[in-house]
């Protein structure tokens, strides 16, 4: 009987150890060691006592440890991650604050952050896109107003982006922007010059004129890829009726709104005049940006300011990048002062016990040398207004960025309804390729309902 009891006991403890092993790696992990060790060392009388002592001490050491835990949206191989790693090393050397940086990548953060925060994982700070951090994860963020005021952070920060962060944060600052970006037309200056275009188009008529000249010069005026093509639809609609109204149309399926047909007609005209790439319907990202724009056969591409960096190895050093805001349209509500601009943002976990240190790190990474290094290595826009020198490839983006006062969210509202995005993309692509006309475009959206 004794033997049976013993084996039963052993079985149970084995099971407990296995189960405990499945637990989260957070606070419970050291406790598991205690349980697992105890039966193994059952001959030594002191062992269980030691096991429990370990268990009691270990979590305490972890939670009051000096290290910051930073979950990053970058992949370790990306230039951004490399720049941040370098700066963090310098930060640790300077301040003595250790930082455990974990490069999770876009999907890693997107899928894993919220579950990890819900499970109480020890994360002090994280970063992602301005909108996702503030809207999707808004309830997990620490209000940074006090820390920002105490450190006089706003003295060197980009005022427009800080304002944008306050706006999406519901009136208060919960995130710190870095790696700003702007979404506008990027173009090949050499083609513009060769075609005799002397000034960037600011109105739709000027835009048509520009396209005509480029076509006459033997180049493809506009190209795009499936990944970004819906932004052209969103931008045009938003120029006509403003972004909030565009978003309403997309979300509520109000395809009878005349702005939809007007937008479609404008693009039908572009298509019928042959201003789009011949292969626009087949352009699966990054085919258009790599094989047409960067190779110098197409002139314009509506994309983000990350584009020059993405294609720099294909485009070569002598590629001259120009940039202009989406042109204004006749009788529209918005002009060239409106665009999608934003940034990646840092935010601090509201439950972090090391908020001040975390802010110190954010301050370090988004200002001065660290910011300049990030800008240089990633060919990105600097966040610190004292870093006035932008990377050479982005020189012409600065005036555009400085001229913006109205902020559109991603795609200017075109992708606000996930149930419609693929249907808009499909039909808008066909419209640009000339496979369907404006009325058929509207009909197709109406047929899809929602």
């Amino acid at each position, binding site marked *: 009987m004794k033997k*049976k009891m013993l*084996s*039963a006991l052993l*079985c*149970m403890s*084995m*099971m407990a150890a*296995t*189960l405990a092993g499945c637990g989260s790696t957070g606070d419970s992990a050291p406790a598991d060691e205690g349980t697992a060790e105890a039966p193994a060392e059952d001959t030594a009388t002191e062992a269980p006592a030691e096991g429990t002592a370990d268990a009691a001490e270990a979590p305490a050491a972890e939670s009051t440890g000096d290290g910051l835990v930073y979950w990053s949206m970058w992949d370790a191989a990306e230039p951004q991650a490399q720049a941040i790693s370098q700066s963090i090393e310098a930060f640790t050397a300077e301040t003595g604050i250790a930082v455990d940086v974990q490069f999770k990548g876009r999907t890693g953060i*997107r*899928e894993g952050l*919220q*579950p990890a925060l*819900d*499970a109480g994982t020890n994360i002090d700070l994280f970063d992602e*896109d301005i*909108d*996702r951090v503030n*809207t*999707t994860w808004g309830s997990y963020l620490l209000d940074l107003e006090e820390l920002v005021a105490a450190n006089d952070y706003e003295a060197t920060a980009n005022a427009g982006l800080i304002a944008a962060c306050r706006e999406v944060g519901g009136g208060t600052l919960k995130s710190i922007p870095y790696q700003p970006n702007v979404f506008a037309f990027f173009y090949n200056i050499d083609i513009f010059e060769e075609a005799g275009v002397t000034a960037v188009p600011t109105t739709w008529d000027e835009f048509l004129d520009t396209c005509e000249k480029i076509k006459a010069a033997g180049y493809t005026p506009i190209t795009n890829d*499936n*990944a*970004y093509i*819906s932004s052209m639809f969103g931008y045009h609609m938003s120029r006509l009726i403003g972004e909030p109204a565009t978003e309403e149309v997309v979300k509520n399926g109000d395809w009878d709104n005349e702005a939809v047909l007007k937008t479609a007609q404008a693009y039908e005209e572009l298509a019928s005049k042959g201003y789009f790439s011949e*292969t626009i*319907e*087949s*352009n*699966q*990202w*990054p*085919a258009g940006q790599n*094989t047409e724009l960067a190779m110098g056969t197409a002139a314009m591409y509506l994309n983000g300011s990350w584009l020059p960096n993405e294609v720099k190895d294909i485009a070569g050093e002598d590629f001259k990048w120009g940039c202009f805001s989406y042109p204004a349209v006749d009788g529209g509500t918005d002009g060239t002062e409106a665009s999608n601009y934003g940034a990646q943002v840092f935010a601090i976990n509201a439950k972090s016990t090391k908020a001040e240190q975390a802010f110190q790190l954010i301050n370090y990474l988004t200002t001065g040398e660290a910011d300049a290094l990030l800008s240089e290595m990633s060919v990105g826009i600097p966040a610190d207004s004292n870093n006035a020198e932008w990377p050479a490839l982005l020189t012409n983006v600065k005036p555009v960025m400085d001229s913006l006062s109205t902020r559109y*969210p*991603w*795609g200017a509202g075109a*992708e*606000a*309804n*996930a*149930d*419609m*995005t*693929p*249907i808009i*993309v*499909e039909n808008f*692509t*066909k419209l640009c*390729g000339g*496979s369907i006309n404006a009325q058929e475009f509207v009909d197709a959206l109406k*047929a*899809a*309902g*929602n």
Partner: protein
Amino acid sequence: MKKNKTMIVVFLAPAVIMFSIIFLYPIFRTVLMSFFKIEGVTDAVSKWQFSGLSNYIKLFNTELFRISMWNIFRIWLFGGILVMGLALLFAAILTSGIRFKNVFRAIIYMPNVVSAVALATMWLQYVFSPKFGLFKSLGKFLHWEWLEKFQWLDPAHLFIALLVAYCFGMVGYHMLIFASGIERIGADYYEAATLDGANRIQQFRYITLPLLKGVTKTNITMWSISSAGFFLWSQLFSMVVSNTQTITPVVYMYQNIFGAGNSMTERNAGIGAAVGVLLSVCVVVIFIVCDKIFKDDDIEF
């Protein structure tokens, strides 16, 4: 031997408890979630809002979800016929005693070893490219204008492109299963058939095929499971934003749980759960149908 109930309980307990936690609990929770509106997938139960059948009703009324179900059905049926057909053909050829059997087998199996990301990039950016693609060059070489001009990647043909690329990678895997099934059949059957005057095709039709029933069932089951979870290739064939030609229910589920593309869209893990439940029902139906068609008639050989 005397049965000892305590020991049975003790030894079964770990497995039963683990099974309950790892399988039964998630199934139960997913089914339950599908009747609620839940913003974050890990939200506490107190944040769930009961919404009855509205998640299911919304799914059936959403064009995009219907498109995704149609896509997966097309992948399962047409892809299935293509892959099973080719796999069986290659398996029959490879087991027929040709030379360099191992080399051919390795070549056909190769795509399974290469990362799907690399494969998809090769197909998308090279083979199907309308500018310098392999098919375009091939069409030019053969003076087949239709092939040279064929736009594989436009909205009208993207599904075919996806199907071709996906099936290319899957043939080798199912071929191996078929080949092992064929090799199990004793050589004396074929010998006897040859003596009776049956040619190769007749042997295949009357010996190989009937004896491959069980293996075929395994293959179809495997194919159905991988089709139901079709995700990676769909994502790779429509980077950043999803596409009507490539979206599948699992992609739709992902978008509802984690948001779509770069935009901040409404999230509802309840809808994601409902998609999961519907998919499971489909898979169960396929299994039942398969079981009915391929009854185990206990042929021993």
